């Protein structure tokens, strides 16, 4: 189909519908409330379910209930709201239910601000809720990718029976860009009769299904955690996505960046190129699983003297970059937050300081 001009938040809502998701529960929070406003109108038109919950805490369990009943379901929120949902996310991961969470990040910690940030990297990739679990985390760099990743997220969530998070930011949610909804990204919901609490009559079975996360027997809990661990290992093997920019050069510096920040970095790299300075960028599209080997290989290229992680945070992804580079190159960090986005000129200045 032809491209249409849409605001990021509304495009994410439309993408969920196009992906085959008819169920959405959410609580308003800036800068993502337009997803709920859009779906409040669109989902009834599609015969779907829209409900504004009384809190993010409750919404987390509405998602859990719907997912446990075997239906495709999504919520969207922003940083403080995702903190409130984190309890449910831990339970959903433990009970192995597929669900899609979209976090349009704003500045924190605490109530913070309402402008774009990337301050929830740790929360999204390292936990947030309690216990040993991971989300599969996809980080779009614009509206088109937000649409595509939202559509892919449902398939991935069902493949792994695990929550998938789209980690965007307020810039992606608020800006308008031309987008295309690709029909090939639409998928049919998987058959969930083996495990979902969808009623014995639904699956013509006399055996009940239990969706739970309580394993009082330590060997049973350990077993469940090993099942989760095996899924995360499989994700590491099969789901890593990334982009390398300007990599076919003898780049002296490798920038690592993701999401909105990576677009500014790309502009800076183009401007540096005009000055005859070659810099490449490594952009993870999956923040979990992190492209561990790929970022290492890009960093240790002979021409590359140093690596710098540029983020809209006080330094979060840089820890993963350092871990993967394993001391073979110096890894620096530059970041701003609170809604401030480093400009291309600032990035050029920082990068030149490394050469």
């Amino acid at each position, binding site marked *: 189909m032809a491209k249409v001009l849409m605001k990021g938040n509304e495009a994410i809502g439309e993408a969920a519908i196009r992906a085959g998701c008819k*169920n959405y529960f959410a609580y308003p929070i800036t800068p993502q409330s337009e997803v709920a406003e859009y779906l409040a109108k669109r989902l009834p038109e599609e015969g779907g379910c829209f409900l504004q*919950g009384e809190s993010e805490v409750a919404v987390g369990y509405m998602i859990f209930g*719907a997912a446990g*009943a075997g239906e495709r379901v999504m919520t969207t929120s922003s940083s403080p709201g995702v903190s409130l949902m984190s309890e449910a996310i831990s339970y959903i991961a433990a009970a192995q239910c597929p669900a899609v969470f979209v976090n349009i990040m704003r500045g924190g910690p605490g109530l913070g601000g309402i402008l774009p940030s990337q301050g929830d990297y740790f929360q999204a990739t390292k936990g947030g809720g309690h216990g040993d679990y991971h989300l599969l985390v996809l980080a779009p760099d614009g509206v088109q990718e937000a649409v595509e990743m939202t559509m892919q997220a449902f398939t991935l969530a069902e493949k792994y029976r695990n929550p998938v998070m789209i980690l965007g930011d307020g810039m992606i949610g608020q800006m308008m860009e031309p987008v295309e909804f690709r029909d090939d990204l639409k998928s049919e919901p998987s058959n969930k009769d083996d495990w979902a609490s969808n009623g014995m009559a639904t699956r013509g079975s006399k055996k009940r299904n239990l969706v739970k996360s309580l394993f009082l027997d330590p060997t049973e809990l350990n077993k469940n955690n090993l099942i989760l661990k095996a899924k995360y290992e499989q994700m590491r093997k099969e789901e890593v996505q990334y982009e390398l920019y300007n990599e076919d050069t003898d780049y002296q510096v490798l920038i690592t960046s993701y999401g909105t920040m990576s677009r500014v970095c790309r502009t800076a790299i183009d401007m540096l190129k005009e000055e005859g300075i070659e810099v490449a960028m490594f952009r993870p599209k999956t923040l979990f699983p992190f492209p561990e080997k790929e970022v290492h290989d890009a960093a240790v290229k002979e021409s590359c003297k140093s690596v710098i992680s540029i983020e809209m945070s006080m330094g979060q992804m840089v820890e993963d970059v350092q871990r993967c580079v394993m001391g073979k190159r110096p890894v620096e960090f530059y970041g701003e937050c609170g809604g401030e986005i480093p400009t291309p000129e600032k990035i050029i200045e920082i990068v030149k300081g490394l050469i």
Partner: protein
Amino acid sequence: MGKTYTKPAALTDNHTHYCPGCTHGIVHRLVAEAIDELGIQDTTVGIAPVGCAVMAYNYFDCDFQEAAHGRAPAMATGIKRVRPDLNVFTYQGDGDLASIGMGEIMHAANRGEKFTVIFINNAIYGMTGGQMAPTTMPGQRATTAPMGRDTALTGMPLRMANILSQLVTPAYVTRQAVLKPQQVNKAKKAIKKAFQYQVDGTCFSFVEVISTCPTNWGMTPLDALKWAEDTLLPYYELGDYKTPEDEPK
């Protein structure tokens, strides 16, 4: 000669973990009988709470999901909204529903979510070891109220059926007890009615059941029944508080 009294099909053969004298077993049976009599076992999904009934899924022979503390009404909302054809019930204690889950129960009731809540009120936290609940009586001892509940510090016990019946949205709200055979029979009728309203797609239904906790009350089962009769029932009056036919207040 046929059997006149058999185990409901909606109960499993598992032995329960509940303490001797605890009335969870009676209420489990009443819920299972209602499910059997309405023929809804294979379309029912139960929600287990956190607390003594956290493992209710071991005893009810139907699909089950397990919520976090207090969140069962939100989870039930999620299921019922996406699968209105299923019969959904939550089974919650007083710490779960009246304390940490107050927000979830109030809003689910006010939205008129068409599921059924079975609310066990035994005036104490059971599973965590006898701490004070929002329903603990004035002067009643609990591990976190060692001198007895001081209402000057902690307020008065919450009467959930009374509170929910104030909502304008149509609902069936009732308080029953299972301390005497007559009460058990009435509770059975109320529970079945609560499920019937759901089957008919009529309204939110809420059955509070005054129960006992001999272990944490530090009483024999018989003394616990008497204490509940003498102490709880004057404050937690039994009866229907709201029916969907009531005029809005």
